[in-house]
Each structure stands twice: as C-alpha cells, then as structure tokens.
C-alpha cells in the first residue's frame, strides 16, 4: 500500500473529529483554526479551565508547525505548501485530542525524538524546571521558535507526548504528535 498520511487517523476510532486540516500552515490558517475551535468549545459549554488549556496547546502545536516543519519531499502531492502540516482535533471523553503531522528529514528525527523522550521521562516538577531553564537561557532561534513549545505542551496537559514516525522514503518520515488535553479528575 502506498503512503497515506491519513492512515494514522483512520486507524484510531476514538472520539469525534471536530476539525481536520491538511495543507500550508500560515498565519491565516492558524487564526482560522483558533477561532473555530474556540467557538466550538464555547458552544459545547466546556469549562473555562479546559478551554484555556486546549487553546494554549493548540497555539503551540500550530506554531510548532509554522516554525519548524521541513519542506515536503519532491514527489509529495502538495508541492505548493511551504509549511505543510496536518491537524486533527477530536472531542474525546472529558477532553480533546490534538493531532499534528509534518514531514521530518531523516537527519532531524533523532534530535526530535530525543527531545520528546527527555520530556516524557521527566516528572511534572522536572518539566517546570526545564521550562524555566530554557526560558532563561535559550535565545529565540532563527526560525522564530523559542524551543519551549513541546515542554509547554507537556507541562500544561500533564500528559505524556504520544508520537510516531512513519517512514515516507529513505530521506523523509512523517511525524505525528498526538496530544491529549483532558480535565483533571
């Protein structure tokens, strides 16, 4: 079977998809997604605490795509997109799942995975300290990211970062990040 970036979602049957997007992630797309999801959460009478967490995590995930995605492979269907990303938001029991996807160069996989693993093996206190350390010591990169997005997501959700790399070809993989934002019980 040929590579289909949507298979990852089709394999997961939990929750209702309230928003799905694939294509170029520019400033207008980010604004539109944020407005749409914020309206839906208000309509759905979500607690403001959960709404704020979802909104914050959504901002970071979208801006991670905006700042960090690698260019699409030469043979990929969508060549027009400069910053190609995929986003799905699902309503699940007591929360939301935010799933993003983007191409990663083979040579950048290890670094990204190491970063996620470090976050995932840290306690909540350690993540707080890591956040403060990066905030205070790392400058904003040339790409405009602060290097804090994933740490912030883990800190705000209190959940581990679920992720997966699916090989596209020998130069590229597609990276999925699956973030659960839920109410504390």
């Amino acid at each position, binding site marked *: 079977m040929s590579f289909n970036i949507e298979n990852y979602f089709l394999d997961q049957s939990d929750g209702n998809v309230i928003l799905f997007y694939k294509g170029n992630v520019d400033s207008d797309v*980010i604004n539109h997604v944020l407005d749409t999801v914020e309206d839906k959460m208000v309509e759905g009478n979500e*607690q403001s*605490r959960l709404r704020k*967490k979802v909104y914050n995590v959504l901002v970071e995930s979208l801006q991670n795509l905006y700042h960090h995605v690698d260019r699409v492979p030469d043979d990929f269907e969508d060549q027009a997109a400069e910053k190609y990303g995929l986003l799905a938001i699902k309503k699940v029991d007591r929360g939301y799942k935010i799933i993003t996807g983007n191409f990663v160069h083979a040579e950048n996989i290890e670094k990204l995975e190491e970063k996620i693993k470090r976050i995932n093996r840290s306690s909540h206190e350690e993540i707080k300290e890591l956040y403060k350390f990066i905030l*205070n010591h790392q400058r*904003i990169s040339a790409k405009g990211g*602060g290097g*804090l997005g994933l740490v*912030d997501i883990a800190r*705000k959700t209190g959940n581990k970062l679920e992720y997966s790399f699916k090989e596209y070809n020998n130069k590229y993989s597609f990276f999925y990040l699956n973030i659960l934002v839920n109410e504390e019980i």
Partner: protein
Amino acid sequence: MEPIIIEGTPKTPTVKFDSTEGVFEIKGRSIPENSVEFYKPLVDWLDNYKESPLTKTVVNIRLEYFNTSSSKCILDVFKKLEAIHKAKNEVEVNWYYEEDDEDMLEAGEDYESIIRVPFKMIEIVE
C-alpha cells in the same frame, strides 16, 4: 519620551507605556507568530526609559493567553525592569490571573523566581 500606545488585536496585546505616568500595562492576548517583531520596540523603549525613570514604576500584566515565543520576549521586558530596579528605583509588577487559571499563576511565579523585582500575584474574580 513619546509614549507607546498599541491597540490590542486577537493575537497581540494592548500596550500602554507612558513615561509621564508611572503605570505601564500589557493586556490581552499575546500569541503572534513573530513575537520579537512585536516586543522589540517595547524593549527598546524601556531601554531609553531606564536612563531617567520615575521614582516609582508599576507594571500591570494582564494576559489572557501568551505563547512560548512571547514568554521569552516578556522576560526581556522584565529584564529591563530589573535593571531599573537595580538602579535604586521602585519597580513593582502586578501579575493578574483569572481565578481558575493556575497555568497563568504558575507562569507569573516562573518570572518572579527569575527576575529580581517585587511581584504581586492578583487573582481576578468574576
């Protein structure tokens, strides 16, 4: 010094920095993709202000949301305030957070632990 008055947008905060009044304000949402572009003029302005500040400067930070790239720029703003404070001027930061927003309270506490300026955490009760 010309004051900085910026109207808020859905992605950038309302800003009032006026050297004739001792109360500065950053309020609203701060989630731009390019936060350096937004904050650089504010940091530069404070750099000038610190040459002859008022004896007391109060800064009200009342943010609903801010992204991680703004968080670094906000730290730069606080570092300028720290320098003013260090030069024996009174500086006070009022950090507002909504009552159910522990994340915003924690964010204020992060800055409080990094920056040597007195912070007041103020809960907004609706």
